[in-house]
């Protein structure tokens, strides 16, 4: 039996997507923990941004309920406004951004707005927040999702946050800069895009099979030529995570 949980593996896989010295748009919960692990292991000089107007070097030690909690303000690198922080996105200074979503499709487009027809929605989801801006303007996007057929779909009902749109040159044709999802980390696998922007199965988490991943994906998921098993967390990575997650929330 592995000595780590699925969520811990996802956090560590997300942490590995952050490179040293990068400016990262961090989200709550799983991504903020991943940012903390990256800072403590291979990326001690990463900078974390929060759209409300907070920038941090070291993440807050306390459990945060929102990015604007007092504990995230104290000892911040910068507390300022939304435009000052999100302006870094449009100015192309942000290397990587994390977002989640209700639905993602074959070309990495993400929906957090409407399930069904937007004019007569079956489910009204909360909307973009800053997700559309982060997806459009980060140099790399890392999406975190649960791997379910109803979430990984052929085509999203509404593109809140653009990935590679219809694939091929369509992202560039829409006027978007280079970027788009570089990794979709699920509880079963990691998907990465090919040159056309189609998400392929890149690695399967230990304990899962490629067939199982395909069965839980809403499109005909192809295998990447170099498909592998997601490396298990190292002792160093797990030690860093345990130091952050003292209460064992993610275990």
């Amino acid at each position, binding site marked *: 039996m592995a000595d780590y949980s699925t969520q811990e593996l996802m956090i560590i896989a997300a942490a590995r997507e952050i490179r040293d010295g990068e400016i990262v748009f961090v989200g709550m919960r799983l991504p903020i923990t991943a940012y903390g692990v990256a800072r403590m292991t291979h990326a001690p000089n990463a900078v974390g941004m929060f759209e409300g107007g907070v920038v941090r070097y070291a993440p807050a030690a306390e459990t945060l309920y929102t*990015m*604007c909690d007092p504990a995230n303000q104290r000892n911040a690198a910068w507390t300022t406004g939304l435009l000052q922080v999100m302006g870094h996105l449009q100015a192309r200074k942000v290397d990587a951004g994390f977002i989640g979503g209700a639905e993602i499709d074959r070309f990495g487009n993400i929906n957090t707005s409407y399930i069904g027809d937007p004019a007569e929605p079956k489910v009204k989801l909360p909307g973009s*927040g800053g997700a559309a801006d982060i997806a459009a303007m980060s140099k790399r996007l890392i999406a975190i999702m649960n791997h379910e057929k109803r979430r990984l779909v052929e085509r999203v009902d509404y593109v809140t946050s653009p990935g590679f749109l219809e694939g091929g040159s369509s992202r560039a044709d829409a006027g978007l800069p280079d970027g788009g999802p570089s990794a979709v980390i699920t509880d079963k696998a990691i998907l990465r895009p090919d040159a056309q922007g189609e998400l392929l199965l890149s690695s399967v988490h230990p304990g899962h099979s490629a067939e199982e991943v395909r069965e839980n994906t809403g499109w005909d998921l192809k295998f990447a030529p170099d498909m592998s098993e997601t490396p298990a967390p190292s002792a160093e990575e797990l030690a860093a995570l345990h130091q952050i997650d003292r209460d064992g929330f993610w275990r």
Partner: protein
Amino acid sequence: MTDKTTTLSDAIASLVRDSDKVVLGAALETAIPFAATYELIRQGKRDLNMIAPISDASTDMLIGAGCVGAITGAWVGNVSGGLGHNYRRAAEKGIPNKIVINDYSNFSVGMALFAAAYGMPYAPVRSILGSGIAENPTFKKAQNPFAEKDEPVVLVPPLKPDVTILAVQRADRGGNCHFWGSNGLCQEAGLAAERVIIVANEIVDDSVIASDPSRILVPGFRVDAVCEVPAGTHPSPLTGRWLRDSAFFNDYHARSRDVDGFKAWLDEWVFDPGSPEAYTEKLGSRLDELRIKGEQLAAPANYAAE
């Protein structure tokens, strides 16, 4: 200095009209003047057009209470619970009334407020290209006239709130207010607005605000009313003053799942207390646990000129 202090009830009655475009809190998950949310509901305001990046569950409450005709913003929900049940009922079933949804992203709603604050005819935005948000019928697509090859941009019209209601840590009687910590779009929303109401955690002597003019969020000459409501941001946090009452948001999320539950919640927390003072009294010792008691002071800044 003109004394602009008043009760929150009087400020809302005299400065917020039905069908107004309203910003209520613009710092995302912090400094949301929920006391004003409750007062708008008690006074039965109707057809408000709520402009917001994220005001946690405040907008969901106003929708459920029938105060809202349109959403002009990026996100409506409940940060602790995710979905906003009242937003869902209104958008999916027209309960309690149909609402118009003008989709923005956080950055584009910010740029639209920025454009209004500084008199720009529109704001060119790139960060919603490729998103369904760019299809908002009030926006226009154009090409960057300075680029040598095609470079699409989305032109977003200025968003000018009739009223902006902001919460701050402290203000003087003239409405000059200090704010610290992340402020989201509070400054843009304050400067863009026709009228401004400040909900202050504390009213302080003029000399306190004057001692540090760089910390002013909105200057008093742009403020119409300032109201002292010590727990006016509950259940949202306020840097240096209040922690977030996450249990309150969770309870709201659970109880607003159906209409009857939401109405009972409204009676308990909005109509029965009837005033900010009675709401504070009802919270009782719960507030003591949320009050920040520690001190971590900033270094003084020297403004001497001699």
